[in-house]
Every structure is written in C-alpha cells, then in structure tokens.
C-alpha cells in the first residue's frame, strides 16, 4: 500500500533567529532528514493549530537540519512566532517543482527577493554558492519595506566577500530613527543599477504579489524572455498534494505544477498575481 501523503515527520526547533519584528527563522532538526531540491516547499504543522506551506531557506545540500523563515501574517504563523526552542513541529514534503539548476549552469543568474520572499531565494542562493564554479555570476537584488524589515542582515558582509557575487539591497523607506546607507527605492528599481545581458540568462523572482507582478513587467522591459523568468507562486498552496484544489491557477496546481513556474507557462492564466 502507498504511504499516507499526510504523514508528518516530527522536527525539533533547535534555534530561533529573530530576523525582523515580524519575521523569524526556525532552525529545525527533523527526526529523519528531509531531502528536497531548492524551490520545493514543505508543509509545517504547529500541533493542534494547523499547517502552512513554506519553502526552506537553507541550501538543499544541508540534509539533517532545515531553516524555515516565516513572517507573521495569519493564524498559523502567529503560533509559529510563539514557538520556543525545544518545541516539536511537524513537517511533510517536499512538494512541487524546484529551480532547474541544470539550466542555470554557465549563466549569469539574477535573483530578486522582496520581504519574506528572500527566504526561498536564500535557499537557491546558498545552493548556488555550493557549486559556484558552475555559474558565471550571481546577482541578488534584495528588498524590504524598511531597514528593520530587512532579513539575513548578519550574513550580508560574508556574502559580499564572495567572488562573482553581487548583492544589492534597497528599502522602500527609512523611518525616523533608523539608518540605512544603501539604496532607497523599490527593489525592482535596482535593475537600473546592474548590467546583465538579459539574453538567455535566468532570473528568479519571489516576494509579495505586487512585487512579483511589477518585477516581472520590469524584467520584460529590461529584455528578459518570459521563459527565463522563474516565479515562485508561494502563498496559494494548502494541502500540498493536489487534493484540495485551493491553489489551482487555471489548469495548473501551484503545489504540483509549481510553485516554481516560468512566466511563459502561467502568463495566460487568470488572476495570477492575486
């Protein structure tokens, strides 16, 4: 008999990193390693509360532990933010499609991550770094609302020292009392600060819906082809296995045909940005 797709693997929280006032990273040690490919997602259960789909933010080369970065946005995530070190949560997965790293080989890879959308793209970034020789260059454009909302600040210096890596950051605004000496603009406008040949090079976008939408339009204007724009349609998934139909985007399921889609594939479906 086939195995129950709802079976969860208990995982212990061994560390919590408070990334911003609303975002934290759970560092998890599952009872058995969960092998995933970067871009795929897992379902995380807070016992007795519920579950939600999240993309790991750690590299897929790291097997016995997993980082998941989560923003407080609703009922389940509120409880994620109440969790403490030592608590046990449930994980099932991985589900869905991954970033097609084979196609990225030998290319200039551009990554655009906004807000908590930096989480799945950090997983990609860290995975790419593992095989840095395989890629021509990696450019990461990171955006957040304010400096306080910017996540993974503690790793930025280390990342910027890596050859072939360019890491630009912007915030939408700098409230009084906060300081920021990098760009102040929408993350999509960072495109003006780089110089990549859009021809035949991949770009990965993940962030809030408006950012995905206008980011995609800006990338098209910049010269990227729809087939080279990879979108992570993150937030729609629910059961993770194509059994609840919640994440249907026209003829596609975000959970099975995605979450990683090229713009080429979904551009003609309705309401993709909502």
């Amino acid at each position, binding site marked *: 008999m*086939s195995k129950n797709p709802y079976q969860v693997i208990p995982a212990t929280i061994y560390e919590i990193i408070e990334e911003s006032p609303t975002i934290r990273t759970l560092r998890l040690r599952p009872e058995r390693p969960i092998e995933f490919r970067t871009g795929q997602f897992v379902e995380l259960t*807070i016992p007795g509360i519920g579950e939600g789909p999240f993309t790991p933010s750690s590299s897929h080369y790291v097997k016995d532990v997993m980082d998941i970065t989560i923003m407080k946005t609703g009922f389940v995530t509120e409880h994620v933010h109440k969790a403490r070190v030592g608590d046990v949560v449930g994980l099932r997965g991985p589900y869905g499609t991954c970033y097609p790293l084979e196609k990225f080989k030998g290319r200039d890879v551009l990554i655009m991550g906004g807000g908590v959308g930096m989480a799945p793209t950090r997983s990609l970034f860290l995975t790419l770094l593992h095989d840095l020789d395989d890629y021509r260059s990696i450019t990461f454009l990171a955006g957040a609302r304010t400096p306080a909302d910017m996540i993974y600040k503690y790793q930025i210096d280390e990342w910027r020292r890596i050859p072939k890596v360019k890491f630009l950051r912007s915030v939408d605004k700098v409230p009084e009392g906060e300081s920021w000496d990098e760009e102040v603009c929408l993350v999509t406008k960072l495109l003006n600060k780089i110089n990549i040949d859009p021809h035949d090079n991949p770009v990965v976008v993940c962030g809030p819906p408006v950012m995905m939408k206008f980011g995609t339009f800006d990338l098209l204007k910049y010269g990227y082809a729809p087939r080279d724009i990879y979108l992570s349609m993150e937030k729609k998934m629910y059961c993770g296995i194509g059994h609840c*139909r919640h*994440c249907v985007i026209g003829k596609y399921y975000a959970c099975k045909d995605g979450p990683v889609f090229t713009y080429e594939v979904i551009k003609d479906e309705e*309401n993709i940005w*909502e």
Partner: protein
Amino acid sequence: MIVSKSEIHAFFKRCQAEGLGGFQQVIVPRRSMVQPRDLFFTALNDKVEMVLESYRTVDPLRALFYFPRERILGGDVPKVKRLVVGAKACDLRGLQVLDKALINAEFVDPCYAAWRRNTTIVTVDCAEIGVSCHCNLVGGKPYAEEGFDLNLTALDVDYYHLSVGSAKGEELLALIQSATTITKASPEEKRLVSENRQAAVRKLQIQNAGLERGENYERLKKADIRIWIEEAQTCCGCGGCTNICPTCYCIILNDETTGKEFIKDKSWDSCQVNGYARVAGGATPRPKMFERFRNRYLCKFVNMPANFGLLGCTGCGRCIDVCAGKIKFTEVIKNVMEAKQVQETEHV
C-alpha cells in the same frame, strides 16, 4: 445473463443479513418519506425497500467514498467491506474524476482509496429520468457502459439483464450464481436491453430539448463578464451545489493533534463560500460572489478537463434541485456560451 428481480433482491438482503460474500454493509437507494420523488442512499435492513431502477439519489455517490469529515492522519484506514446497489451512470462518472484526482501516481488519499477498494458497485440503468437530469448534454448515457462491477438492466417487471464489468464483479457474480438461477440472455432479451435504454435516452432528449450548447466550453471562459454577473444574481453562496456535486472534492484540513501523535481531519470545502482558499493575511482568490459562481462552471468545464481529460459535470442535475437561488445550471451554461465573447481574459 438473466436473473429474476425477486431472487436477486433477496440475494442482496441476504448479503446484509447473513454477511454473504463477507459484506458488512449493503447500501441501496430508498424513497424519502416526505418527498417520494426523492431517493437517498441508506443501509439496507428488513424495513428498507430498495428502489433500484429510478434515477440518481439526492446524495451523491461520492459521499459514500469521500465523507463530509474524515480522519486522514492518525486514525484507522476504513476497512468495512461494502456492497452498493443501485448506483447510476452519472455517479460512476463522478467517481472516475475522483479516482484521477485522489488516486494517482504521486499521491493517494488513503481513506478514499480504501473505501474504493473495499466497495463493490452494482449499477442499475435509469428507467425513470429526474426533472433535472441532463447526462445526455455532457456526453453521458442513462446507463453505465464501464467502470461498474456489475450492472443490471430491467427487462420487464420480473427480470434483469446482468453484465459484469470487473474482477470484483466476477466474484460477486459467482456468489449470485450460487444463490439464484441465472440463464443466458436470448437475442430477444438483448434486443429488449437496447430498446429500454433507447427509451430512456429519448426521454432525456425530450426533456432537455433546447438546452443543447455544443462542447466549446472555452466560451465560458471568454464570455463577457457581464453575463456572469447577471446569471449569478440570485446566488447567495450557500455552497449547496458543491456539497451535492458528484465530482467536487475540495477539502480543508483540521489539525487535531493533542498528544504526541499528529492527527489531521479533512472536511469538505466549497469554492462558493467567501473564505475558500483564504491565505495568511486574509486574501481570497475570488472575493466577489459572481467570480466564485463563475469559477464553479470553469472548474467543471475547463479546468477539470485540462487536469483529468474528463468533464467535471456528469449531468446529474443535483445542483439545480438544491439551489437556494433557483438557478438552472443548464440554462446558465447555454446563456453564457451564447453570450458575447471578449478576447482578453484579464477582465475580472
């Protein structure tokens, strides 16, 4: 093969009473006491009178395989061996959709799969047609041609023609043979089968004359949105239509974990209610009623065909009977398919 009605009815009763064939439950349609036109599935016992040759029940066959609420993790996989007698062709088509959705190479719903495995289905041709029946408009027939274990066609008041459609059906037939007298069908009797079937088809054609609309369902998607707004006017979003549909399978999951073991329940959801597919932060995919109303039609006629190669509508007509807004599903389809088409789809 030919079997007498009284003998095979008695056989079904013995399956229930004596556990013949190892069946622990025999489920049949019976008439509602309040509204005799309505049929419901019920567990057979001495007091139940089975009604096999009429049209489909009020409750979809799906509900016997996909419960309104069921423990999907941390409970026992269902093990009851069941015999369902009197299922209809349209409902069988519904199960074909669910089979593709819930039992596939990637992921299997353990409860649905177990109920399917442990249940033998005897279909019976429709001799009567319900007022909302329209299987003929979706390429269906009022009799099953595949997917059943055993099928019965009434020849006259006394006899059924019987055919076998699966290995489970073979097993059941062997059992029936041991308990009843089965004879070979004569050419005359075979002719009667197709005559009776044609008679039912004709009733459907007459009933649904004028509602034909072709099969170019992309037109539903491309129709001017104003027609949808109009058609949805009396829809109150009660979700009756999705609950009663033979192919709807949307669910929500409830985490019921209290102790160490993880426990999850699934329950029916409805794309007609506003909270459907609400994501963290509160956004829903279709906040307006007419968008949700339209979604149900697109799901059945455009998305499910793309996903499964099968229409999501079996023509059972239950959504017409149940509708609080007195909306006639078949008329909506026709009206929308005949409405003005617009090119761009980003109009909602």
